């Protein structure tokens, strides 16, 4: 009996660790959604694709898909920078011309971009699941960092968690203590007023996209390593789940996105582990729908999206 209890509790702990890791990844992606929504009230459907691009770029740079193989660290940095630029590019090409158009037009454009990018990746890299070759990734990542009883925490999980926490802290600092952060918050409050006060709205929106997309790219790389799988549709599912996390936390709120990501990650892992593994994807959708229907403002939301 004691043995069973021990086994059960270590299973619980293991799932907890997995859940927190997953949650921190969702949080990283969700922040991108939430920041963009906060600034221009657009659900950037293509954000999941940026995350996928991050994973693919780092993979390609590391394995020499484009001709040259780079060391791992450098590849990661370049991939993240490229993701940030891709986000800005997306904004300039697709969304900026539609700032004054009806919101549905922008949303449809975002979906179109998402499909375009996903198929572009399919075209370039093919549908097959790619794995990071062991030789090019620092070996310690795959070793267990901590092990007590049956519970194993790998270095990769530690890295994911610390990266997520560090980036979140950094983000909070940027949003609260820099000029550009102040401008972002001003635009979120009232775009017209901010523009009248001399804030260059387009530039700030670009910065927002860059920050959000960069974080998305980081998440993509981490996930690519964590599951050792990179494939074109990875952004679709992760994007939706992260969006659910952002909605759960209250769209527009960065701490909300972090908390929402954590809750969703745990819910998914525990749901998958204890209830039914086949419905674990459904948990994200169900959470999202319920939150929108019952409390559209989410946990920390500022945007009451209800009519009248």
């Amino acid at each position: 009996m004691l043995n069973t209890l021990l086994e059960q509790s270590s299973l619980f702990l293991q799932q907890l660790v997995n859940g927190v890791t997953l949650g921190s990844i969702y949080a990283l992606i969700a922040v991108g959604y939430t920041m963009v929504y906060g600034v221009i009230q657009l659900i950037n459907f293509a954000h999941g694709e940026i995350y996928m691009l991050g994973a693919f770029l780092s993979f390609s740079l590391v394995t020499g898909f484009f001709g040259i193989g780079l060391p791992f660290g450098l590849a990661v940095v370049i991939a993240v920078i490229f993701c940030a630029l891709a986000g800005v590019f997306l904004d300039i090409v697709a969304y900026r011309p539609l700032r004054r158009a009806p919101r549905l037009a922008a949303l449809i454009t975002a979906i179109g971009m998402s499909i375009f990018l996903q198929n572009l990746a399919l075209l370039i890299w093919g549908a097959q699941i790619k794995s990071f070759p062991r030789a090019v990734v620092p070996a310690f990542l795959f070793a267990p960092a901590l092990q007590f009883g049956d519970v194993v925490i790998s270095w990769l999980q530690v890295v994911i968690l610390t990266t997520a926490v560090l980036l979140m802290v950094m983000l909070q600092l940027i949003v609260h203590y820099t000029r550009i952060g102040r401008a972002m918050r001003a635009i979120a409050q009232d775009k017209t007023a901010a523009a009248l006060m001399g804030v260059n709205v387009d530039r700030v929106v670009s910065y927002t996209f860059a920050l959000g997309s960069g974080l998305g790219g980081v998440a993509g790389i981490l996930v690519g390593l964590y599951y050792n799988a990179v494939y074109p549709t990875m952004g679709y599912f992760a994007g939706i789940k992260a969006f659910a996390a952002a909605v759960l936390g209250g769209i527009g709120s960065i701490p909300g996105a972090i908390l929402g990501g954590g809750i969703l990650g745990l819910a998914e892992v525990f749901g998958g582990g204890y209830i039914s593994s086949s419905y674990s994807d459904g948990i994200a959708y169900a959470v999202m729908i319920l939150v929108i229907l019952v409390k559209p403002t989410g946990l920390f939301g500022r945007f009451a999206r209800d009519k009248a």
Partner: protein
Amino acid sequence: MKRDLSIILTLIFMLSLLSFSARARAQAETIKIPVASPFTGPLASFGEGVKNGALLKADEINAGGGINGKMVEIVLGDELCDPKEAAAVATKFANDPTVAIVIGHLCSSATLAALPIYKEAKLPAITPASTNPQIGKSSPYYFRNVYKDDFQGDFLARYAKQVKNFKKIAIFYEVNDYAMGLKKAFIRQARKLGLRVIGAESYMAETADFKAQLSKFKMMRPDAIFIPGYAPQATLLISQARSLGLKCAFFGADGLDDEIMLKNPDADGLFVTTPFLVDQGGAQVQDFVKRYREKFSIEPNWFAANTYDAVGLAAAAIAAVGLDREKVRAYLAGISSKEKAYQGITGATYFDKNGDCLKAAFVKTIKDGKWVSAEKQLQ
């Protein structure tokens, strides 16, 4: 002006129809043998073997003067192992009157989707790779030169018990006809042998995260995990299991027999069943392997070998009775005993009343990043 537009659009539509028909008419005097398989998509590497095997055989036939003086042309139908695409490809073949026999499909679910279409068009087909037991029973027009899942699952259970001496097995299966058939056969045989199946979990084709279920398995401490499914997921699954600290053995069926497993250092020690082993054959096999290596500069896998034989069978049938679908079927159904068997590189092929055939299974394993025959085979 609006009406002009609609007229223009109609014209475009008609023109596009014309271009279809133009393509359909551009046919030379060759004998078409369509091969349907996933040539792109996640299972493309399986399809690669199918394609190469078919091309090799076609070249061989053409070098020998073709079938009754006509050249053989392999027509590829890419269906991504997706039942929907498979049905579309099958309709295309079924509606082409110059097609007398189809080689394909690879995945059991694709084959099952295409089956009613061939059945209706009375078009015989040989699958070189689909192992689901349903296939033979459902259509008199479907033949296969590969063993069935009940045989394979059975075989694996016996192997696990009698050779490997495992006691507790967990099963992690993909939800599809192929894997579920395997699982069922495996569990049935395991019960008979007293092998304990301590848990079964499932995943979908697009899943990439197996950690929650693996954590569960870990607590059950199985001796081995049986993975009925396909290689792309299996390799991820094994890596993730190892990173969670699972130390048990892994084994699977022919769906795992793929080059990408070799790139995964965690997969060392994995063993799988296969209908064809490079080093277990006579001169005919060695000749095939040599030519294959020369032509494609990779190692042949069992898909290549089976397709090679399937095309051979089809060619033999057409050579004997011509391009009449009914007659081809009758010819294939006539190969019903060891004496009348077709002698190919995968051994003697002959069909029972369902169109299924009995073949030997072998076990191979990964050792230092290479597929090798297992030391002990089960007879």
